[in-house]
């Protein structure tokens, strides 16, 4: 084929030469010279035509051979390989296609809300930074996602979130920006950058994959409005077992508003104690996660994903004060193989979290360990394409410390919703919440209408 290309170039050149000559042609050409030039042009044209025809015929024949499924060439190659000298792995095999450099997508999330509580109380009930802001309309999570394979060794993911605050300001945050290794040996994978901590299930999910409008109470309490995230590194190991078992070990910075159970923000308060300035003096000042996640296919339709997570780190109520958070989680999904684009399905997701917080003595408060715990249980039923109904039950409580702390007192919540998926990329959700709290007196009822669009690159489905 390359030989023929040379011919084509030659032909094109032959054609272009007389044209160039023509431009520079002096006005008074002798009839003989004119005739000779014309003859030359004619010949060149004929030759080019013949070459093109030959090219076309050969191309046509190749195409016909390929179309007819003639595997002569393949057989020759295979035979060549069989005669030895073939590398164990030859060139990668892929169909032709466009180069995929970066996948860009945007998630737009809007909520209209009404509640029996005034906005001040509402914001105490809904602590999540991507929860509705109060009565009326909210734009709590407008997310730009960038993802792509960097080279054969890394992929990269970035999530930049814009939102409109309760004050009407535009807030921007770098939610995640991390790389993931693709080709480490020993079934290892490293993640590095700033990213959601891999504790449990929901902490590492972006709001547009949540099955409910708002964040569960216990997660808001233990991990703060923005979820537990921050700069760090993670190593995970896929155990060489016949079933899925992943061991995750992660280290993150322990400070800032995205680590409220740990060093948090200096000047803020926790259970009556001010949070002190802190810096990383030793490895003890970092935050450590160990997680084990396994999975079992009970039947063709039923999948079980249990997990256990443990977090250790310092807190800033005093010197050498530590916090530990333990969690167990379970996800069960039923989806028959012959489901119609994912419907019907049913799933249960339960997470229970426990926190031991060593609080230093301060201003009459003793040196004590504060215990908090809570759980949420979500039940989803995709009863008919494209409808999903959901129910969520929650409980959160704390022991020890001064009373009257809205972030530690007993809270209970029941939520029910129904979601309609226009397509895989847009949905409308209606949700009702009832909140009970020791400090609130009578229960608060809230209504939400949430709309979400997700446009751009096709995001990967996660399990």
């Amino acid at each position: 084929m390359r030989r023929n290309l040379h011919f084509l170039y030659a032909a094109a050149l032959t054609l272009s030469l007389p044209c160039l000559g023509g431009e520079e042609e002096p006005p008074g050409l002798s009839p003989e010279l004119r005739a000779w030039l014309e003859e030359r042009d004619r010949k060149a044209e004929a030759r080019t035509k013949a070459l093109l025809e030959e090219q076309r015929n050969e191309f046509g024949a190749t195409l016909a051979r390929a179309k007819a499924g003639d595997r002569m060439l393949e057989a020759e190659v295979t035979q060549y390989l069989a005669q030895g000298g073939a590398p164990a792995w030859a060139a990668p095999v892929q169909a032709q296609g466009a180069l995929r450099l970066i996948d860009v997508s945007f998630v737009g999330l809007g909520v209209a809300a009404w509640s029996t509580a005034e906005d001040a109380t509402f914001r105490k009930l809904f602590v999540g930074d991507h929860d509705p802001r109060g009565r009326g309309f909210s734009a709590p999570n407008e997310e730009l996602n960038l993802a792509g394979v960097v080279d054969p060794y890394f992929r990269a993911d970035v999530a930049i979130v814009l939102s409109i605050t309760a004050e009407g300001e535009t807030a921007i945050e770098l939610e995640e920006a991390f790389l993931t290794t693709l080709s480490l040996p020993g079934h290892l994978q490293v993640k590095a950058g700033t990213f959601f901590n891999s504790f449990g299930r929901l902490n590492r999910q972006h709001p547009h994959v949540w099955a409910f409008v708002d964040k569960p109470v216990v997660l808001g309490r233990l991990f703060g409005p923005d979820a537990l995230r921050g700069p760090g590194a993670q190593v995970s190991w896929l155990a060489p077992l016949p079933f899925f078992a992943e061991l995750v070990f992660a280290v993150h910075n322990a400070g800032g508003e995205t680590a409220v159970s740990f060093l948090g923000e200096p000047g803020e308060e926790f259970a009556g104690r001010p949070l002190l300035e802190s810096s990383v003096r030793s490895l003890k000042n970092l935050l450590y996660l160990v997680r084990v996640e396994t999975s079992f296919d009970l039947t063709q339709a039923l999948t079980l994903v249990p997990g256990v997570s443990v977090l250790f780190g310092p807190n800033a109520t005093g010197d050498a004060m530590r916090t530990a958070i333990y969690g167990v989680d379970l996800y069960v999904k039923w989806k028959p193989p012959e489901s119609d684009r994912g419907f019907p399905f049913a799933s249960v997701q339960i997470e229970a979290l426990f926190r031991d917080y060593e609080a230093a003595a301060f201003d009459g408060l003793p040196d004590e360990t504060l215990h908090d715990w809570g759980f949420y249980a979500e039940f989803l039923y995709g009863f008919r394409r494209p409808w999903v109904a959901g129910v969520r039950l929650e409980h959160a409580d704390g022991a020890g410390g001064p009373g009257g702390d809205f972030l530690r007192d007993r809270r209970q919540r029941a939520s029910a919703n129904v979601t309609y998926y226009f397509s895989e990329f847009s949905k409308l959700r209606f949700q009702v919440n009832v909140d009970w709290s020791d400090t609130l007196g009578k229960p608060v009822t809230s209504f939400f209408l949430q709309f979400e669009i997700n446009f751009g690159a096709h995001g990967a489905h996660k399990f």
Partner: protein
Amino acid sequence: MLRIALVFSLLALGSARAGDGRVRVVATVPNLASICRAVGGDRVEVSTICAWNQDAHAVDPRPSYVVKLRDADLLLVTGLDLEMGWVPPLTERSRNARVLRGGPGYVDCSQGIDVLEVPAGPVTRAEGDVHPFGNPHYLTDPGNARVVAGTIAGVLARASPAGAGAFEAGRKAFERLLDEAMFGAALVDGVGGAQLWRLHAEGRLDAFLQEQGPELGKARGEGWAGRMRGRRGLPIVTYHKDLSYFVRRFGLEVAGHVEVKPGIPPSARHLVELTETIRRREAPLLVTRPYAERRSTDLLAARTGIAVLVLPLDCGEPGGAQDYLGWMDATVAALARLPGG
């Protein structure tokens, strides 16, 4: 801690492969797995992700699939973005660089296929779940199984050069079975497989056989080609656009689709229009899949009397066809049983 490490390493040893030299292959769909088994014989160990009755567009990336991919030498995908929603999260989690897109073990089986319905110009999601690289259901044309068998024989030979001869023999044997199933043994012996496929694709087989004399002419009724001869030009309705390659191969016509657009379920208005089309074109048959909703097809059947055939898009149905050839045979049988011929 030491005890835990010990348990883990013992388990690791227990699950380590015997090192029998077999090529470990994971195929996304059963038909690819079947062709790979036919070519690779006992030199390959093939497992499948998608079940026979599952829609390959919408598969949950269950963690157990990550384990399958962790140990795979080769991953066979249909390609053309059919599995793009779930294969990337599985391969990236598998920690197996071989089977990552671009890796030596990632095999896009659509290579060499004459792809249909490649959209011209830019595509948006306003057209539904349209595949920008063209229709990925190419294995509904048995001629394409020949191409795929060649691709698989090639990659198996690269993965295990010592078995190259055996893979080539396996490919030839599969090709012979496929050719015979398509045209009958008499024609394959008399004319040659490659020639038959070429003539059939160009619509010149009948004319050619007549020229060859009465003996070969008699044999033209055999095989899938023979059984489908009387069906040329027959209008059928399909639920999804997943029979296009079959329709082209056997010269059928598609009167309409139940889906408004790929992946978008029908509206009432679309069903009314389709009812009229079915009546006008007198389409006798509607082909749908085990995973497609039944309300629309039941309604169309009740309104027009069209016969609804629920056919799997892959082999492996318990009690049904267990391999690609059997599945194609059942598909041809179902469509050749049409009334009026």
